[in-house]
C-alpha cells in the first residue's frame, strides 16, 4: 500500500532505521517490531535493499517493511523483490504504477525471499519432468 509521507509518530512496534544500520546487530530490538521503515536518502543509494533482504531472509522478519525517502516508480520491481510491502512515496502516479509493477517482470533469475521460482528452478523442473516422462 502506498502511504503519503508523514512524520513518523514512532508508535510501539515501529522501527525507523537509517541505511547505515547493520540490521544483523539489532538483536532484541526486532522483537515485537510490526513496522520497520527503511531509508533511501537518494534513490541511487541502494543500501536499504540489502537491509530489507537481511531482515526478511536472514532474520525472518514478517511484519510490514516500508520504503521511505526517494521512493520512485521505476524502483518498485526491485523493492518488491527485496521484501518491501509498503511505500512512502509522493510521486504522482505511484499507486497505479505499484499495481502494474507486480506484473512487469514475469521471469526472474535470482533466488530472493519473494518465493518466486527462478528461471533456473523452472528449467530444472522441466528437465526432471522430461526425464520422468
Amino acid at each position, binding site marked *: 500500500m502506498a502511504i503519503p509521507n508523514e512524520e513518523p509518530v514512532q508508535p510501539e512496534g515501529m522501527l525507523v532505521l537509517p541505511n547505515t544500520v547493520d540490521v544483523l546487530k539489532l538483536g532484541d530490538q526486532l522483537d515485537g517490531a510490526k513496522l520497520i521503515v527503511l531509508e533511501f536518502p537518494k534513490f541511487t543509494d541502494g543500501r536499504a535493499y*540489502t537491509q530489507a533482504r537481511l531482515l526478511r531472509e536472514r532474520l525472518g522478519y514478517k511484519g510490514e517493511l516500508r520504503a521511505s525517502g526517494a521512493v520512485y516508480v521505476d524502483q518498485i520491481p*526491485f523493492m518488491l523483490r*527485496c521484501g518491501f510491502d509498503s511505500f512512502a512515496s509522493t510521486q504522482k502516479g505511484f499507486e497505479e504504477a505499484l499495481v502494474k509493477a507486480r506484473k512487469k517482470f514475469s521471469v526472474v533469475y535470482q533466488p530472493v525471499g519473494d518465493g518466486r521460482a527462478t528461471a533456473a528452478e523452472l528449467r530444472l523442473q522441466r528437465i526432471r519432468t522430461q526425464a520422468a516422462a
Partner: protein
Amino acid sequence: MPDAHFYHYDDYDRTLVRERVEQFRDQVRRRLAGELTEEQFKPLRLTNGLYLQLHAYMLRIAIPYGTLSTRQLRQLAAVARKYDRGYGHFTTRQNLQLNWIKLEDAPDAVAMLAEVDMHSIQTSGNVVRNTTADHFAGAAADEIEDPRVWCEIIRQWSTLHPEFSFLPRKFKIAVTGSPNDRAAVRVHDVGLRLWRNGEGQVGFEVIVGGGLGRTPMIGKTVREFLPKDELLAYLEAVLRVYNRYGRRDNIYKARIKILVHEIGVEKMREEVEAEYAAMKDSALRLDPDTIEAITRQFALPRLVHKPAMVPEVERLRLEDRDFALWLKSNTAQHKLAGYRIVTASLKPAGAPPGDASSVQMEGVADIADAYSQGEVRVSHEQNLVLPHVAVEDLPAVYRALQRLGFAEANVGKITDIIACPGLDYCALANARSIPVAQRISNHFANLAKQHDIGDLKIKISGCINACGHHHVGHIGILGVDKNGVELYQITLGGDVDFGQTALGTILGPAVEADRVVEAVDSLVATYLEARTDGERFVDTYRRIGAEPFKERVYGNPQ
C-alpha cells in the same frame, strides 16, 4: 548456416529481455513527455546502455563473454545501418558501441537487438556490467575449462539483481579458464581464475579489488580455491559487503578497490567469508544439472578431423611473405592440430582502432559462416576472432579478410593499438586518442619492421578513466589537458599477459601531440639497440629500467 556452439536463449531469457525492452520504451516515452526529469531518467537510461556523448547518444551493446553468432553479428550491422551511421566500435570490454543513436530511436534499436537475443542491459550505470572472458575461450590449447560457462551463469545472476542495482559504483567481473590470462582478471573488481588443485579438482581463485582509472590497483586474492558450485553464493557475499560498505560520498573513491585498500585484504576476506558462511546452504548453490545444461551448450563443435600440415598452406607461406607474417601474428594454436584461431585485425594502418562498418561486420559474418562454425568473438583488444578455422582454409580466410582490410599482420604488434574513443566522441575525455593512434599506426606501418620490433602493446586513454587500459600497456599513453592544450603522458612497463599483471610507471613530463610519434620512435630505438636475444620490448624494459628510455625521449638532464 551452422549453429553456434555457445549458450542459446530459451523462452525465459527471451521473455526477460523483451519485458525489459518494454519497460525501457515506457521510460523513454515518459522522459520525452516530461514526466521524468533527467535526474530521474539518467540512471534508467544508463542501465540500458545509453550514454550521452559530445555529439549524440551512444548505445553500448552487451556481447556476453565476447561471443557472437553470425546471425547476431549481422543484426548488429543492421542496427548500425538503420539507427546509426553504418559503423560501430568494439570496446575493451568486448562490447559494441554505436555513437550516433537518437533517444527516440533507442527503444526500437534495443527491440531489434532482442530479436537476436541481444541487449544493452547494465552496460552502464552502478551495476554489475558485462562479464568478460578470454576471447580464445573454448578453442585455446592451453585451456583448463571454458570460462564462458561461468560468465553465462554470472550474467543471469547479475541481470536485474534486485539487491545490487544501486551499487556505490560500477562493478566489472572477468573470468579466465587458462593460466595465460587473456581476460586481465587482476584489473577487475572481481577476477576469477579457473585452476586445478592438487586433488585434481577445478575451482576458482577469487581476486577482488583490481581496477584501472584514477587509482589503478592490482586485485588481491581473497579466496585461493572456491568450489565451482559455490560461485554465486560467494559473489553474492562479495557484492553484499560492497553494497553495504563501499563509499558513497565521493565517486572517485567508490569502487571496491578503494574499500579493499582502506580496510585491507584480511578484513575484506573476513567480511566476505562471514557473509558467505551465513548463506552457504542457500538457494544460490548451483545444481549440478544446471551447470551441466549450460556447459553442454558450450561444447566444442564437432570439428571434422583435418590435417595439421597442408601443402598449399606451406607453399603459400614460402611464396607470400605477408601471408607468412599473418600466420605468425594473427593465428594462434587451437585445441585441435588441424585448426587455428584466427584474429581479424581491426587495426588497418591509419584507421581508427576497433571500428568496423556494417558491410565489414557482414563480411566477417560471411567468413565465419563459411570457415568458423558460424561463430565470432570480440577481444578486449578491439579485434574480432574466428575461433575454429581449419588450417586448409587459412589461405581463403586470409584473402577474404584482405578484402575487408582486416588482414594486416599486426596482432600483438606495435600498430595493434588499443585506444578509447577519446575527446572526439567522449564527454569525459581531456584529449583525443584516435588521431594519436592513427599517427603511430601510419608511422610504423611497415610489416617487416613491426615483426622485427615484435610484441609491443600500446594502449591509449583520453582521460584518467583509462578505458583504453593505458596502465597495462607496455607503452601507455594518457591524454591530459593543460590550459586547453592536449598533452600526452607516457608510461612504460604495464602488462596483463601471461599471468603477469603490472602497472606502468610514468616516464617523464607529458609531451605535446605532435611529439608523441617521435617519443614512441625513441622508445623503440632504445629497445632495439639494447635488446638481447628473444627479449620483447617489455622484457628489455624490465631488465634495463626506465633511464635509457627516458634519456632518449627527453635528452640528458641538465
